Structures are given as C-alpha cells and as structure tokens.
C-alpha cells in the first residue's frame, strides 16, 4: 500500500509525544499515512514552517492560534487548532539561590509560594519559552493575584537554554515544559516550586495546529491525521506504556535526553531539587484523560480574555475570533465516528469542578477532570467578566 506522506513539525518536548507515537507505533500507518516529523529549533520557526506550507500540521502552543486571530505577534497566516495534544505539563522553578531563600515551602501551593516570593523584596526575571504561551498566561494570572507586591518581568528563553540562563544569572526563575524544568534541576540546581496544574488544573498546553482552512480543503487527510494522533495520545496516556514511551522520546532524533528525565513528567513524580524529595504533582500532564484532546471553545475564549486585557483589545470581539480557532466542530466530525467521547456542548465554564465529574455526552458519558484555578475564580464564557 502506498502511504500518503505528510510533513509535520514539532519541538523536542515531552508533549510532542502524540505526534511521535503516531508515527513510531504505527497509528499513522493504520490510517495510510506516513509522517515526516521535522524538528524545529524555535516556536517562531515552527510557525513560519506552517505559514509557508513546509509542514501541513504542527504541535503548537495553544495560545499561538488565538494570538494570531487577534493580530498579535508575528506570522502571516491564520491558524487553527484541530485538537488539543496535551493538558498542562508546565512547571515553575527558581534559581538555587532563590530556592534557598524561599526556605521551607511545600511544592505546589501557589498562594504560599506567591507570598514567599513577594517577601524576598526583589524584582524577578522569569524565563518563558515564548511570548504567546500558556506559560506566560499562567504566570500572568498567578503572580499578580498571589503576590500583588511582587515586581516581575518575563524574558523569552529557548527551553534547552533555561538551565544555562539560570546559571548565568540572566533569569531568576522560569516556567517551562518538561523535560526542561527537570533539566534545570539537574544542571543548574534549580528548585521547582509550582506546577502549571496547581495554577489552573485544566490548562490546554499544546494543540495540533494547521493553517486555517486546510482541514476543510483536505477532509480525508485531516480525518486520518486526527484519528492517528488521537489514538497515539490514548496510547501515550496508558500507564503501562510509560517506560516504552520514555525510551522512545529519549532517542537522539527526538528529545535526546536521558529517559529518566522524561519519566518524571510522564508519572508526575518530580524531583523538586537536586538533593530533594520526589513529590507527586497532581494532574501534572495529560494526553487523553477526561476528554483532554477536545478543543473546547471556552479554552480559546479564556486565552483571548487574558490577551485582550493585556493588550487592550475589545473583549467580546476577541472572544468570538478566538472561539473560531478551536475547531470543536471538526473534532466532532472526524473523531466522533472513531469513538471519541463527545461533550454535548463545546463550551463549558472553566474553573468550576472541585473534583472530577461524570457528565452525559452525546452518546456516552464523559469524565471531566477537576478544573480549578488556584484562587477559585470561575471563567464562564457565556458571561465573561
């Protein structure tokens, strides 16, 4: 059988797993596809590769398609998210020196950590991978609320350089995706303080992005690709497959780091400092659990809400533009028949679930995971603030 070869872009990160697994474990081949996976060195490079058709789809920061729809940042094309590739997986950490100054502080308490950071009485420079990223959004949501007196500035630092930048004193802390937080612990003596999930337990981190309109121009290909990636995400989320997944991602052509660094993100058991205890970070990262791959329009609206406030855009307009970039309609069309559980609505209030809840879906029930902001706020897209 001749296979249809598609070029896909990714960044060497644990959450590139669904794309890598789709190709390596035959989920793509089952759909008659062969994926030419092309690593990019930066998010801007990956975005340009999408813009200029060097790849048809890419792992992308969930904020980027929304930012583009709001005409923020670089890029020439409108992008859209066909599905979510991963939830959370971010971790905030600080330099060894600041880690020591924070003293005795449990991991994963955003309020206590905020107070302690403000109590240091100094400005903080915090590294993030990209100006338009969930890392930026989570910090910008968390710090002003938990530490109103803290002055901080965000600096863009490529994730593989985070440890080096910390050591060189260019930054005091970081918020980054794995394995680069654990890498900073190992190489720069960093201390991990809070996971992204502790700030918002259901933050969409990466999406499968294409140029707007591609999936409608090529519905057959889009369907095949989405099914392959969805099945790969389910495989990656299965606990028995973790060891194999860590070994696969660790290969030189993918992440090129030790498998045990990757294992930490997959199990949610992080080493918070180089000497320190291993802790369990709840809901650290997920590829599949609880309809994780469904692109909720309310997620896009939340992102737009944050961006609109920061850049002074009109809220209602921003919400509407953003919603259209998360293609829950295409998800229903292509993955419903494949067996994905579909919610009845494509929007939900974010931050309302104190624990996971079973809700009726279109044909089967769905389990929606705990969905909380650290400060208990609720974002209802039907009734924005």
């Amino acid at each position, binding site marked *: 059988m001749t296979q249809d070869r598609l070029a896909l872009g990714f960044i060497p990160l644990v959450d590139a797993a669904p794309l890598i697994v789709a190709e390596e474990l035959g989920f793509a081949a089952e759909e008659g596809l062969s994926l030419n996976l092309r690593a990019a060195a*930066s998010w*801007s*490079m990956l975005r340009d590769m999408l813009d200029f058709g060097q790849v048809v789809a890419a792992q992308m920061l969930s904020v980027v398609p929304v930012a583009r729809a709001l005409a923020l*940042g670089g890029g*020439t094309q409108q992008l859209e998210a066909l599905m979510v590739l991963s939830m959370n997986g971010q971790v905030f950490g600080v330099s060894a020196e600041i880690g020591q100054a924070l003293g005795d502080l449990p991991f994963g308490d955003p309020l206590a950590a905020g107070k302690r950071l403000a109590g240091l009485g100094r400005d903080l420079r915090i590294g993030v991978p990209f100006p338009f990223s969930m890392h930026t959004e989570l910090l910008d949501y968390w710090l002003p609320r938990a530490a109103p007196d803290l002055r901080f500035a965000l*600096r863009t630092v*490529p994730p593989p350089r985070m440890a080096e930048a910390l050591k*060189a004193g260019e930054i005091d802390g970081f918020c980054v995706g794995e394995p680069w937080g654990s890498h900073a612990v190992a190489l720069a003596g960093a201390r991990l303080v809070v996971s992204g999930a502790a700030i918002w337990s259901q933050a969409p981190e990466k999406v499968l992005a294409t140029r707007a309109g591609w999936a409608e121009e090529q519905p057959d290909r889009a369907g095949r690709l989405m099914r392959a990636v969805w099945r790969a995400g389910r495989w990656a989320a299965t606990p028995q497959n973790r060891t194999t997944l860590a070994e696969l991602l660790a290969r030189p052509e993918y992440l090129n780091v030790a498998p045990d660094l990757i294992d930490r993100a997959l199990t949610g058991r992080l080493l918070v400092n180089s000497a320190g205890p291993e802790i369990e970070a709840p809901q650290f990262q997920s590829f599949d659990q609880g309809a994780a791959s469904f692109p909720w329009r309310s997620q896009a609206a939340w992102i737009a809400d944050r961006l609109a406030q920061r850049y002074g855009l009109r809220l209602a307009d921003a919400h509407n533009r953003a919603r259209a970039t998360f293609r829950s309609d295409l998800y229903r069309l292509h993955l419903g028949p494949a067996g994905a559980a579909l919610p009845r609505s494509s929007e939900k209030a974010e931050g309302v679930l104190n624990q996971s809840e079973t809700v009726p879906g279109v044909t089967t029930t769905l389990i929606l995971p705990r969905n909380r902001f650290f400060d208990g706020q609720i974002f209802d897209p039907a009734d924005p603030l």
Partner: protein
Amino acid sequence: MHEKLRIIIVERDRDRAHLIVDALREAGDHQITVIGEESGLARRIADIRPDLVLIDIANPSRDMLEELALASGPMERAVAMFVDRSDQGLTRAAIEAGVSAYVVDGLRPERIRPILDAAIARFHMFSRMRNELAATKAALEERKVIDRAKGLIMRAKGIGEDQAYALLRKAAMDQGKRLPDVAQAIVTAAEILG
C-alpha cells in the same frame, strides 16, 4: 541620499558571519554589527536599536526576537516581524533559504530588498555547502566501512585486497543491495561474532 541602515547579524559562527557581512557590504553602505553570543540577546539588540536584524531560521534564539516586536514602550521603535507587512514572495524566499529577518516598523520595502536579496543568496550558498559537507562525510564513512569489511574478508579467507573487493561487490550484486550496506552487515556480524 539615504541614511545608513543599522543592521544586526546574529550568528555564532565567525566565518559564516564574515561571509554574510561581505555580502551585505556589496549591497550598500550600512552599519553592520555581528552578535555572536546569545546571552542577553534581546537587551543587546534593544541597545543598538537596529533597523534590520538577520538571523538563521534554525537559531533557537529566534524566539527572543519575537519578544522585541512586543516590548516597545511609547518612546521605542517597534521591531516588527518582516513577514507581517512586506512582500510575501520575498519573505518566502528568505524562509526557504533559511534566514529570517526582523525590520523596524515603517522601513520602506525598496530599502530592504537589496539587503535581503544579498542575504538570501548567501544563505543558499550555506545550505549548498552544508549538503556537500554531509554528502562528503557520508561517502567517507562508507569508504571506511568498506575498507574494514575488505580487511575482515582478507583475513578470514587469506586472500588479497582486490579479490576481497571483488567478493564484496559480487555479494552486493547478487543480493541486489548497495555495496556499503553489505560491508556494514559484515562489519556488524564480525563485531558480534568476534
């Protein structure tokens, strides 16, 4: 008469940086600065206040430049992504050649074009050189494997070099495989069995 443009080239490799600078000099009289060190890149660029920044598309530090497009206070000039506003064809050519350009908002396309054309030509040359280097390296590697396989056959069968090579070539032809692949198989087998 136009004012000189301030151009920054972000490039770690000194030889490559020199080649780019030479190409740009031919495209006009500009003030060119090379930044080779990636630490504090954004701040250094902000200090120089360039009209144009050129950076390899595969440079991981590119994302730092995206930040500059946003972090402009009222007194600062925005560094906009070139691809936002100008000639799409030119941008595509640049991206395909492997160079990305950031220009200050409002700089006229006709002033950018000669510089970009020169940079694009130079980056095409780099990728040709890279491909040639990779091909040469691969050929050398294959040569080495074939020599090792020849040596193994010569020792095992007590024959001369020409005969060993003839055997290797015949095996490749009979099996419909490439000579280096057969040689590799022999070397691997010898490593395991030896």
